[in-house]
């Protein structure tokens, strides 16, 4: 599969995530869109890892570990994402407790 396909797919998902961040005002959905962006990155990383694995294979490196680092990175991203989600949701909940809303447009005490 041409790597460009994966790049385009990831970029598309990534940009959809960004559009979500831009257009939604529900903090949770914004956060979900960010998760979507992370997943786009994950996909790209895996695709690249396979690309590099193939390149290494073609170069004659038969039992090399080329490309594993990409997939491991994805693993770490997931780890971090999990941690982030726990903290993020905690913050959102705390926010909700105080103002009974998760609308980011209410976040305008701090400005100028």
């Amino acid at each position, binding site marked *: 599969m041409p790597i460009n396909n994966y790049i385009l797919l990831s970029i598309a998902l990534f940009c959809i995530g*960004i559009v979500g*961040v*831009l*257009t939604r*005002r529900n903090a949770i959905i*914004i956060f979900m869109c960010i998760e979507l962006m992370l997943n786009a990155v994950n996909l790209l990383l895996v695709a690249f890892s396979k690309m590099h694995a193939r390149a290494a294979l073609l170069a004659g490196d038969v039992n090399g570990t080329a490309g594993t680092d990409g997939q491991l990175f994805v693993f770490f991203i997931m780890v971090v994402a999990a941690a982030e989600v726990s903290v993020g949701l905690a913050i959102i909940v705390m926010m909700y407790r105080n103002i009974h809303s998760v609308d*980011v*447009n209410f*976040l*305008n*005490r*701090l*400005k*100028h």
Partner: protein
Amino acid sequence: MQNALQIVYLIPLLPLIGFLINGLGRKYLPKPVIGVVGSGVILASFILSVWVFMQVKGMPVPYIASYFNFISVGDLKIPFAFQVDQLSSLFLLIITGVGFLIHVYSTSYMHEEKAEHFGRYFSYLNLFIFFMLLLVMGANYVIMFIGWEGVGLCSYLLIGYWFKKTEYNKAANKAFIMNRIGDLAFLIAIFWIISRVGNVNFSDVFAVANGEVEFRKFSATDITVITLLLFIGATGKSAQIPLYTWLPDAMAGPTPVSALIHAATMVTAGIYMIARSNVLYSMSHITMDIVAYTGLATALLAATIALKQNDIKKVLAYSTVSQLGFMFLALGTGAYVAAVFHVMTHAFFKALLFLGSGSVIHAMSGEQDIRNMGGLSKKLKITFWTFVIGCIAIAGIPPFSGFFSKDAILLSAFVKSPLLYGVALFTALLTAFYMFRLLFITFTGTFRGTHEQAHHLHESPAGMTLPLIILAILSIIGGFVGVPEVFMHGGDRLGQFLAPVIKPNEMHHVSHSTEYLLMGLSTALVLVMIAAAWFKFRNYQRKEETGFGKVLENKWYVDELYDKIIVQPLHQLGGFFKSVFEVSVIDTLVNGVGKAVNYGSRQLRLLQSGQVGSYVLLMVLSMIVIFAVQFFIRK
């Protein structure tokens, strides 16, 4: 013998010491002591001057006493040096001699002043003498300039001596500032000389001018520029067109001051300077012409104004301006000796006239308007007679001193051009007319003042009359040092005396008969004018001036003109700069930067809307821009 002259520094130093004693001790010394010290130092200087005068007689080259380096930068070395030669020694005599008399006169005249102010007055006078001596003794233009500005300062201080009167102070300021304008030209001339000669010693400058120095030379332009600038300097100090208006106003000072500074000495500094620089002037015909015509124009203008003045001192002041104009005429026609001669005689008779007027004012308790006088001859006999002598001298009736000097000037004017002569003669006639007008209005007819004044009228004390008498005698005989060749073989002693400094004039080619004719003509016409004045003014009655007379009374409105075209515009400009340009242009620009920052701050902070969405949007937009530029433009 020459080494003995080393002590010439005492001549200016003594008045300086007098100044210090009187200035510092004015609160502690009694008036007589102040008077004695003030006059005494001048007397000592005078004696020394006489001694110096004796020494320099026939001395072929000037004696230069150098004391220390005043300013020395690179090649430019300006020593603090005095030059003693015939010209300066003559001036020394005039300054210290007349100065001494006026000091003596002042002790009486200023007697009513408080001791403190009395001391101040004498310290100023002494200081003036000091600077005047510096002026004439300086061996280079810079020392001369020091004296030049110094006398201006003293003039300023003395005009504003009665400092409570705002008008007087304004007159003092005017004098100083007008002088400063001239001084600036003088300064630039000095710089010009430095740029061409490398220093400012008279000897060096004249040597270069005479072509005695290799490598250094004046071009014709240089000469013209330098001489013109020096002349402008002289117009300031010697009250010539266009800078003459300060002198009449300067009469605000005490009368002895007018006599000393504004008649006998300071105002002649310009003549001295040009006479001193005669080598340079003789090389530039343009300048000479300008000097001559300016002098003549001034003489005429001032004479016309003097015709209608009613303040006794103002008349004398304009007369002084006019006489100074004569001197410049002489200078411009190359008759340097005649000019110096006239300086001397003028010092005698004009000092006499001023002192006489002082005596009158003293008697009239400060009244200066001649319309309120009349018939004073009965009460003030000595004053009257000495005044008459002064008037005759200035009018130019032989054998009084004024005749000879004025005649010499007229003659040189005649040689140059009959037109000059004609106008000069006319002016001389006007002089006779207004002087006798003054005399008759003041001293003849009936008294027109108040009762109180009439009651108070008295002859002045001896301290005042004695100087009058001495000056009267000098006014009578002073002319004999310059009796022309026609009258006496070996005449023109003055010219011979000054010969080492001022080369005798070669163009003196007038036949004796012509000379006699001219003298007779002028004398006759002067007598006619005196007679006219007698008939017109012996029984003067006050009346308003109209028409042309009013223009003259108002001095051709020159002061107003200056005010309109120079003073006011500058004043306005200053006001514009101060309250408009400074505030709304420069400060606005400067503060504008601050305001712009402030405004920018106020607007820019609105970018910080507080909305997460807009933050992300802005971030994304900038990312787009950077990517777009990166990949589509920069490549």
